[in-house]
Every structure is written in C-alpha cells, then in structure tokens.
C-alpha cells in the first residue's frame, strides 16, 4: 500500500481552478519533495491530505484512509508542520509540549524530551521569544513525538537561513529517514531538496508536470545547442524551453539521450549542457516554446 495516493484531484476556489487533475503516489519510507512556485497549489493539496479542505473531484488516500471520512484517525497517525506555523506565543516550550500531548494517542513524552534536548530548545522560554529556526524545530518536535508513520511538512525551510536549512536537512536525514518514516514536504528551493529527496514532483498550473528521482531527472533533461534550422527535427512535445542564440538555438529537452541519438542519426552533433535542478525546474514552469517560422523582427529605433 502506498503511503499517499492521489488520483485526478481537482479543486477550484470561485472561478479559479487551483488543482486540475493532480495524480501521484508516495511509497512508504520515501522522502518526497513537492515542488512548485508560490501559489501553485501546494498548500491547498497538503490541506486536503490532512482533511482540512474538501476536494471537488478525484480520490485521495493517506495511509489507506480517506482524509474527508476519517480526519481525526488520520491526524493521530500523521505528523504535520504547517507553513508559517502559529503557536501560542505566550506559552513556554515545556507548556506547549504538555498542551499538545493529550491530542495524540501514541504520544511519547520521553521522545519529546529527547528531541527538545537534541534540538537545544530552551524549555522555559516563551514561544514568542524563539528564533525562526527554533520555531521550526519546536514544530518538528510536536510533529514527531507521537512517532508518526507519515510526516507532512509544508515548506519547512521557508524563512530559514542557509545554516539552519542545512541543519534542518540533517534533522530530516537523521530523525526521519533514519527512523524509516515517510516524509512528504513542499518547498520551492530545489537545491535544498536535492540532497535529501528520494523523489521530486513538480506542480505547475494545477498539474504534476514531472515526477522523478532527482538524478534521473538530471540524466533525462539536458540542454542541447544546435543550429536553429535543425530544431524542427526535435519532436515538439520533448522541448521544454527554446532560446535562440544567433544562428543556433539552445533547446532544453526531456528524453535527452533519445533526442541526442535521433540527431546523431541525422548526422547532427549537438553540444550537450548539463543542467542543475533549478534550471530544470525553470524549464518546466516557465519554458518558452520554439517558434520556427517567425523571423526575427527588426527592432524599430526608439
């Protein structure tokens, strides 16, 4: 059984369709990074996973349960860190831990204390006096101390500085992956996600436009520089982005090994450029199509 199964889920707010047939699955024990630009609908989907929002259509199973049918049972088994988590600022760290504990049937107080120690969180400090990084770590303690099978984190790295982001990744590797938990987390920082994710999915215009292991993605998506007049030989549906450069054109393509082979079969050598994940993400979410017939317009003098 998959830890998360989402099939053809749609959601509109008034007239705008935020999710338009989203499908993916997350296998148990994997770390799954959910990527998209701000406003792509990541938080909307996460809220549905927890039964905090109703879908318009499609099906959705988390740990085998439908979140709309069994939200409380589900939330007892899932650890959740909300985007911009707001906690009672007037409570002290030890107070909020005791306040949260009774909501979970499997709360492990010793584990909570162990995390508090390891994360070097000051027990007697009021939440409003914690730093942003300490806040995220406290949120993690509260999300993890009931030993959830699945942890859902909504943009946990938001607002963290580079040192804290690395520390967060380390916490994730040590405490979550090390314990065999399934992790589903959203982010818009690809280079932060790459070291830790088993799988990345890119949400764009309400759909998952790509789901793959980061290194598979890198091997599959490359930039090829060829003569512009040869560009029509490349199947259009494989081109994510096209940038003319004089007589040449730089095409960012999927199935790159196949495209290189096709071009080679026609006697065309292409210069192959390896891309980093940010380049690949950009090609998927803001790629420009190749317009072969449009002549370059002469710029009118201003």
């Amino acid at each position, binding site marked *: 059984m998959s830890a998360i199964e989402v099939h053809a889920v749609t959601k509109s707010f008034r007239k705008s369709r935020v999710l338009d047939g989203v499908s993916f699955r997350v296998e148990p024990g994997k*770390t799954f990074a959910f990527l998209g630009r701000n406003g792509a609908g990541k938080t909307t989907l996460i809220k549905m996973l927890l039964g905090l929002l109703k879908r318009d259509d499609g099906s959705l199973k988390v740990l085998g349960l439908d979140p709309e049918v069994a939200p409380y049972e589900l939330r007892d088994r899932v650890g959740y860190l909300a985007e911009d988590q707001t906690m009672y600022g007037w409570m002290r760290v030890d107070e909020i831990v005791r306040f949260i504990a009774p909501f979970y049937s499997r709360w492990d107080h010793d584990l909570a204390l162990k995390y508090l120690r390891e994360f070097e969180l000051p027990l007697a400090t009021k939440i409003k006096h914690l730093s942003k990084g300490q806040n995220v770590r406290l949120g993690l303690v509260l999300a993890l101390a009931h030993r959830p099978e699945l942890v859902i984190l909504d943009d946990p790295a938001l607002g963290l500085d580079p040192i804290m982001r*690395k*520390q967060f*990744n*380390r916490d994730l*590797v*040590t405490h979550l*992956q*090390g314990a065999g938990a399934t992790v589903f987390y959203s982010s818009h920082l690809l*280079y*932060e996600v*790459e*070291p*830790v*994710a*088993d799988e990345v999915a890119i949400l764009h215009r309400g759909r998952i436009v790509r789901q793959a292991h*980061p*290194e598979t993605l*890198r*091997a599959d998506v490359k930039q090829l520089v060829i003569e512009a007049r040869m560009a029509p030989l490349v199947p259009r549906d494989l081109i994510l982005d096209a940038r003319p450069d004089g007589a040449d054109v730089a095409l960012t393509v999927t199935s790159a090994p196949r495209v290189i082979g096709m071009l080679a079969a026609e006697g065309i050598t292409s*210069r*192959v*450029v*390896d*891309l*980093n*994940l*940010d*380049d690949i993400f950009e090609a998927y979410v803001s790629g420009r199509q190749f317009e072969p017939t449009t002549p370059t317009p002469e710029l009118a003098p201003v």
Partner: protein
Amino acid sequence: MLLRVEKGSATPISRQLADQIAALFTAGKLKAGDRLPSVRELARELAVNQNTILRVYEKLASEGVVEMRQGQGTFVAELSRAGRRRAHCDKLADEFRSLVRQALSLGLSKRELQELLSSALAELDDEAVSPLTESERV
C-alpha cells in the same frame, strides 16, 4: 575524510561524492584498508539522503575502489597494480572528455584538437630526450 557537496551544481551529488572519494584515493590520502564512515554517519554529516551515500559506496565498490564487508563497514580496497592503473586511466579519460567538450564549445575542430595533443606529446618527448635544454629555453 573531508567531503563537500556543492549545491546547485550541474554535477549530481552522488557523482560529486564518488569523484571526491576516488580523488582522495588517487592522491594517497586514503590508503588500502582504511575504513570509510558508515552510510548513516556520512549521511548525517553531509545532510544527504542515506540512499545517495549507499549508491556512492556501491558505485565505488563496483569500480573496485572500496570493499563493502557485510556487518563490518566499507573499506578502501587493496588494488592490484592493474586495478590502480585502470582507476587512474578512468580519471584521466573523464578529464579528457571534459577538455574535449570545452574545446569543441570554443569552436576548435577535432583535427585541431588532435594537433594540440600531438604537439603536447612531442614537447614531452623533447624534454625526455634532452632534459638539460629546459633551462636553455627559458
């Protein structure tokens, strides 16, 4: 063992790490029989997914650079002369490939590249024949 993960690089992380470990070995900083950190330790230290570290060790094991011993850990392998030679050759071949790519992107032809290599080799031959002429040329 000092390793570095360069974020946002066009080189995948597993390749970065495998290359760095192989380089430490080539440079003699890792010796046959040395024990590498456990997958878990290295994952924690670098803040990198354990599966990625495992893939790096498996790749190095398949190349004969390390040996993964069940229940004991990962050790730098005892390499035969031939194996060591092959490891150096692989490394050089990689560097050649990237040099060739660089040259082609600068617009050099394959022929010009071959000429560059030939003249570099010829220079070495000259030095080998008369090492004393080095000072005269300067």
